[in-house]
Every structure is written in C-alpha cells, then in structure tokens.
C-alpha cells in the first residue's frame, strides 16, 4: 500500500515535470495610477484624431474616451489641454538586452553565428535585464518592444515581446501571452557570414535552399508529432513520443501557426522568393523587416497580408539597401486601397527613442509623393500595426475601451521634433514622469561614475 503511494507520488512529480512550461511570463504591473486626462488631443491608434477629448484609465485598462466624461473620487485629474495623447509606442525591431549598452563583446549576445540555422535559440535567454537602454526608450514613449536575434543566420531563433518595465528577470518583463516569433534573414548577411567560412550558404540560391531544407525537416517532425498526438492514450503508451528537438519544435510551431515569422529581407525579388517558400510549406510571414525595397512589391505584400517594418530613411550601408525611397512606408501603407500594413521600426538604440519623429519623416515623404495620409493614420505605424505584427493587438496598440492602458502624454503634437513624452503609463501605471523626476534606472546606472549618484545625474 505504502509502495503504491510512493509510486503515485513519484508519478505525480513526473507528470508535473512533464507538463511544466518553462519561461512563462511572470509580469506584474505597477500599482495603477487611475487617471482622467481632461481636454487632450488624442490619436487613438485606430485612425482617429479626437480633439479636446477626455480619457479615463483605471485598474490598468482604458475605461472611457469621450467628451466631458464624468470623473470620480478615485481618479487623479490631469489637465491635458493643448497636449497630445497616443497609445504607448511599440518597437517591432529592437535588440535591447541582446545588444545592450555598453556595446562590448561580453554581452553582445544577439547572433548565434555558428550555424546558418539556429531555430533552437531564444533571444530571451540572451537578454541582459540591466541594459541601461530600456529607460531611455521609455522616455521616448516606448511601452512594448519586440527583441529579435540578429540576422547572421538564415533562421536565427525565437524573438520575444516584452513590456518596457525593467525588472531583474526576463520572465517578469515578458508580455503575458504574447506569441513567440521566429527570426529569419535573407540576403547579404547569411551568405557573407557563412560564405566567408567556405560553407553554405555563400549565395542567395544557397540561402533559399537552406530555408527549404529546414522546412522539409520541420514538416517531417511535425507529421510524426501529429501522428503521435492523434493516438489514443492506450496507443500512446505502446509507442514512443518523438524525441524532443529544440530546433524542429520552433519550426513546427511556425507550421502550426503558433509562432510568428519576422523576416529580415531588403530586396523586393528576395521577398517575393520568401513568399513562394512560405506558400510551398504553408506557413505565414508576419512581417518583412528593413525591406528597403518594399515599395517595389507593396501590392504583393498587401495581398498576402504581410506587414513591412521599415526605417524612415536609412540606406546605403549595404548594396541591398541602396534603393532607398523615403516614401517606402507610405507606399506600403497605401497599397491595395490602403490595406497595406506599414510599421516604422528602429533596430537602433537611438532611433527607438524617437519613433514619433521617424514616423513624421515617413509621413512627410508620403504626402510629398501625393498620398493623402493623416497623422491619425500615421500614428498606427508605431502603435497598432506593430501590435498586430507582435500578435498583441487584442491587448494593446490602441486606446480602445477594455485594452491595456499603455498611454503616452506628449507636450506637443508627437509629429514634431520638439514634442517630449511627459508621462508614460504601462498597464495604467505611471512608469515615467518627466516633471516629477519619476524614472527607472538599471543597476548598471548605479554609482558607476560617482558612487553616490546614478550614471546621468551630473
């Protein structure tokens, strides 16, 4: 009898161990700052400009948005006359934490450049949570960011979406229930890195063969997994579960539509090739990143429901980035009667602090190209569209009642270079306040130059 208990005891431990899902988000928001903003000008991230409008955030959520809303005792009132409110900004392409500051070898952990396919690595396992860059991005209004591995590899590994609320473990920063992503890369980088070592790929055709070989392996793994999972419990006991394979688990996750593909790709012809490969293996590309030539195939992207995450103007550092058009973002946005999905991304520790100005440049270029695009629509490029591409649009990215209260209060219209984020709220809790001096600092900042001060306190 006792033995049976012992047996069940061990069996239950075994079950728990078998079912434990590691690396789940343990994120907890800060205590809420329930607030009513009076007479704000609002870009809501849904394409609307609301002038002299009130906004209530309570218990972490957007509760009401409208004219002359009724206040209540539990709300702090902020006069936002003449100021602007936007949803919290989302950067869909960040390397904060995996390429932290200072930029030194010992913490440059973004590229597992030892094999062209490393689908088994996860960016979140590289992230340094004490990177001083998160707080700088927060002061630029960034409330959520998506960190990807670098682009040395054809398939670089999993990305992670995080709240910009610095904590001392990565799980406590992870955006709850955000899907995982997979970084893939086209073009010069993989073929240069591996070609220089005399191995495959050394050409773009080598790149294409590399992806396809991986997907064939993934399909075979997935069918074994499906076959096993379709069995009855009895039949499962009589057979072996396919051995876990970290690389193929990630790729199978893509084929099961659980993991979103984010594909670094500059040239239009290569993007078209990648779309063919995605169709061949029946997976979806969520977004092309950098995509300097997206404007050449904007219709194709819109038809296939693929976002393009772009710089406003960087170019020329590589041959595949030579055909820069400043209206790239606007052309993608306007494709197929405005059904395109354009995103302004940073891929840069300075750019992430000024995504509003990057969007302003892209909008200006679009207007010059003859498109009729409003600021209220252009704000989507740094709010709702990246939220969609990160798979978190149901939770954030726009100021819809019921969504997370990720909110930025700007001193001026955010399309101006002179606009500063005055207050930034994450899940309805104030995380940065320019005038009260409330701002986070990382352990790195503490006492590093002057022992009794923080890094940038002079």
């Amino acid at each position, binding site marked *: 009898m006792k033995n049976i208990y012992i047996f069940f005891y061990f069996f239950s431990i075994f079950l728990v161990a078998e079912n434990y899902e590691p690396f789940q988000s343990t994120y907890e928001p800060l205590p809420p700052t329930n607030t009513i903003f009076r007479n704000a000008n609002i870009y809501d991230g849904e394409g609307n400009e609301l002038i002299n409008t009130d906004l209530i955030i309570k218990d972490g959520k957007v509760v009401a948005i409208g004219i002359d809303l009724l206040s209540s005792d539990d709300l702090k009132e902020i006069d936002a006359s003449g100021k602007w409110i936007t949803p919290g900004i989302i950067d869909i392409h960040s390397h904060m934490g995996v390429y932290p*500051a200072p930029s*030194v070898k010992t913490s440059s952990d973004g590229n597992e450049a030892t094999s062209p396919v490393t689908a088994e690595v996860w960016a979140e396992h590289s992230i340094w949570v004490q990177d001083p860059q998160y707080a700088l991005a927060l002061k630029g209004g960034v409330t959520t960011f998506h960190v990807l591995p670098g682009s040395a590899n054809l398939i670089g590994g999993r990305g992670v979406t995080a709240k910009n609320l610095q904590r001392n473990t990565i799980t406590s920063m992870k955006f709850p229930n955000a899907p995982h992503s997979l970084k893939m890369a086209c073009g010069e980088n993989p073929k240069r890195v591996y070609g220089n070592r005399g191995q495959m790929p050394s050409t773009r055709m080598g790149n294409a063969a590399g992806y396809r070989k991986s997907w064939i392996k993934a399909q075979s793994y997935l069918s074994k997994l499906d076959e096993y999972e379709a069995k009855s419990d009895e039949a499962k006991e009589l057979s072996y579960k396919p051995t876990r394979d970290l690389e193929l688990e990630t790729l199978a996750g893509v084929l099961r539509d659980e993991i979103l593909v984010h594909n670094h790709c500059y040239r239009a012809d290569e993007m078209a090739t990648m779309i063919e490969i995605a169709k061949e293996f029946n997976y979806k590309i969520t977004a092309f990143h950098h995509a300097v030539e997206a404007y050449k195939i904007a219709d194709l992207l819109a038809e296939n429901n693929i976002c393009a995450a772009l710089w406003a103007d960087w170019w020329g*550092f*590589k041959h595949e980035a030579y*055909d820069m*058009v*400043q209206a790239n973002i606007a052309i993608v946005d306007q494709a197929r009667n405005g059904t395109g999905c354009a995103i302004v991304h940073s891929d840069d520790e300075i750019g992430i602090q000024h995504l509003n100005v990057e969007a302003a440049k892209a909008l200006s270029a679009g207007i010059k190209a003859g498109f009729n695009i409003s600021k209220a629509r252009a704000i989507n490029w740094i709010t709702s569209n990246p939220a969609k591409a990160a798979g978190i649009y149901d939770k954030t990215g726009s100021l819809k009642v019921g969504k997370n209260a990720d909110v930025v209060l700007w001193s001026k219209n955010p399309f101006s270079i002179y606009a*500063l984020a005055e207050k930034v709220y994450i899940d309805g809790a104030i995380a940065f306040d320019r005038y009260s001096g409330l701002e986070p600092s990382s352990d790195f900042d503490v006492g590093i130059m002057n022992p009794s001060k923080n890094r*940038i306190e002079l």
Partner: protein
Amino acid sequence: MIKNKLFLAYTILAFNAAFIESSNMVIKNAEIYDGIENNSYQGHILIREGVIAKISKTSVPYADKVYDAKGKIITPGFIAPDTQIGIVEIGALSVTRDDESSIYSIGFSIHDAFNPNSVLIPWNRANGITSAITLPRNTSSPIGGLGSFFILDSKLDILSEADVAMIGRLGGSGSSSRSESLALIDDILSFASSLDKKNMLTDASIDEIIDDSSIASYMDFKPRDVKALYRLFNDDLPIIIKSHRASDILKLIELKNTYDLNLIIMGAQEASLVVDKIAESKIPLIVNPINNIPNSFDELASNINMTSMLEKAGITLMFNVSRSHNYHLIRQGAGVAVANGMSYGGAIKALTSNVAETFNLKNRGSIKVGNIADIVVWEDDPLEPSSMPEKVIINGIDTDLTTRSTRLRDRYIRDLEKPNTYRN
C-alpha cells in the same frame, strides 16, 4: 505623355540654371536666419554672379529673376563637418570605399578620390546640405589622415579645398593602453614641432629628417606624412581628435596648450563633466546631440542635455550623426538639441557658420554681403525633419532637387500601366 512633360521640365530647369548663373536673382520677403545673429529678420537678398551682393530690410533690390519666399525661413546651406560623402558609396562594399590607405598614415589625403557623381550628393543636397567635410576612416594610429572640404553641386569640375583638417583618436581601443596612445601623440607632435622650413624643401631632405628621428622611422613615415605634420605648426591646420572620456578630454586640453594646437574634439560624449575646462580652452566640439547612449565605457556620461549645457558655457559646437549616408540628419540632431534646451539660433550656427569659422572655409556658412550664395529656402521650420528644402542654392545657382530616391519613388507610383522597366 508624362515622359514628355518631364523632358520639358528638365529642359526648363537646365535653361534656368544657365540663366541664373550668368545673371542675378533676388529672394524677397524671407525670414532670414543668417548664421551670425541668434534671431531672424525679414529681408530681401540679392545674389549677383554667385555672391550675396546686397541684403535689404526695406525695398526689394532689382533683379532679372525674383523669388518670393514670403512666409518661408531661409538659412545658409548647412555644412556637415564629419562625413564620408564622395568616398564611400556603399558601406559594406569595399570596392566602393576610398577612405583608407595602407601606405600613408598622417599624410593620407582622400581629396583625389572624391566622386562628384555619388548618389549621396544629390540626396544630402536635397535635404539642405550644400557642402561637407569628408574624412578618411580612423586607422589604428592615434593620428592619421587628412579630410577635405567639398561643395556638393555634383559638378565634375570639383570645387573643393584639399586637406582642411587632420584626424586622430584617443580612447579605449581594446588593444593597447590609452597611455600609450597619448605618449605616441606626444612623440609625434614633438617631432612635428621641431620641423624646420629649410628641411622641408625636397623629399630627399625630408627623408633625412625621418632617418634621424626614431619616432618617424618607427612610424614608417613618408615625406607626405611629414609635410602634413609640418602644416599643424606652420599652417595652423585644424586637428580633429575623436575622444569621449572626460579624463581623456582633459589630457587633450593639456596637449593643445603644450603645442598650441588648433584642436577640435569630436564625439566628446562626456564633455558635460568638464564643461568649464573645455570652455576655457576654447576648443570647438563636434557632437551628436541625439546620441545619449553609453555605448562604451568611455561614454558613460552620455546624456541628452549635454548639447545645451555646452552651448550655455559658450563652447563652439558643430554636429555629426552616428549612422552613414544621411549626413543631413545633423538637422534632426539640431532639433533634438533645441527640444532639450539649446537655443534655436545657436543650433542654426552649429549647422553653418561654426563649421565655416572652425575650418576656415572662406566666404561660406553665413548670409552676409560678399559671401558666396549657399542658401536654402525651407518649406517650414528647418529643424523639423518633416520639413524639406524648397530651394537649394549653391554658388548662387539654383540646384536640381531630384534624387535617385525620388526617381525610384516615381517609378513605382506613376505610369503604373506600363511594365516597371519601361517607366521613367
């Protein structure tokens, strides 16, 4: 049809350019930031034979061609002091790079490599940059290479000033101590300060000096290198040293004082810790106002308020950018500086006259009578990156603002019924 219209437009443009060159024009009703005064004023500018002939605050001077800039801001053409325009076309493509030498060190000049047909030139010009200083890449040597000044008018008949500045660097290198770099700079400067004109007459006599000097021999100097060093002390040649750490900046101030160098410090991410010392030394700085990243252990004090602190201390400032190709983004940096406390007029000077004065670029960088007419008419506030130049005048000539980028854009938004390769 569209093709014909464009052709017509080009014809008119070419005609106009030729017309203005040999004639004169007036820009009237402009709000002028002249790069000298902090505040703007309303006025009319007469350009004759490429030169600013008259600035009137009352009546409009007569000219063959009148351009009404009512409601528009005009500034001097912006001058980018730290670029690779004309010598690097595509960063990762070494065959398009002309920014390095394996033979010459200090005397390596990039001047003759300049490509006036580079795509970067119309692009930066259309964004308000009318001239630029192009610098070679930093080498492992703490001093190495000469930069030149170029007018960005895309003419094969290149207008330039060769070898206007020497470059160098000091800081954490990952290979050897900065103390070694400082000693090496000191040894080189000591050698340079001992050079005598009578020994500089022939390459043979310079070779003798090299043989006699242990440091010159060790550094494997060629006569070109020695001639460049000679200019430091006999031509007051500016030397731009890239350095960040506060303690390094203080060492550079000592060097300046010891050798009476015409020193400029570039980067200077920790300048805010030694503001008074820099102000006292009168060393001009080239900074990137948008860069607040502690990107190395030399740059821990990086912060967004630095530029306005430096301005308040009276330090002469110029701006650079951290990424390649878009050197015009110095004006976005200037806008960020103003958003964080710098004065507007001070920011315009940092983009114009401060560069001209620091590098002794004669008759450029400000709107005053007698200066060469490098003038930009802005559709709106020049420090708003969303505002673009409406007119860019270089040497008094109205330049074409078409870029490869606008051509490619038009190819994908116009004339779409034709296959793309048959569009304009």
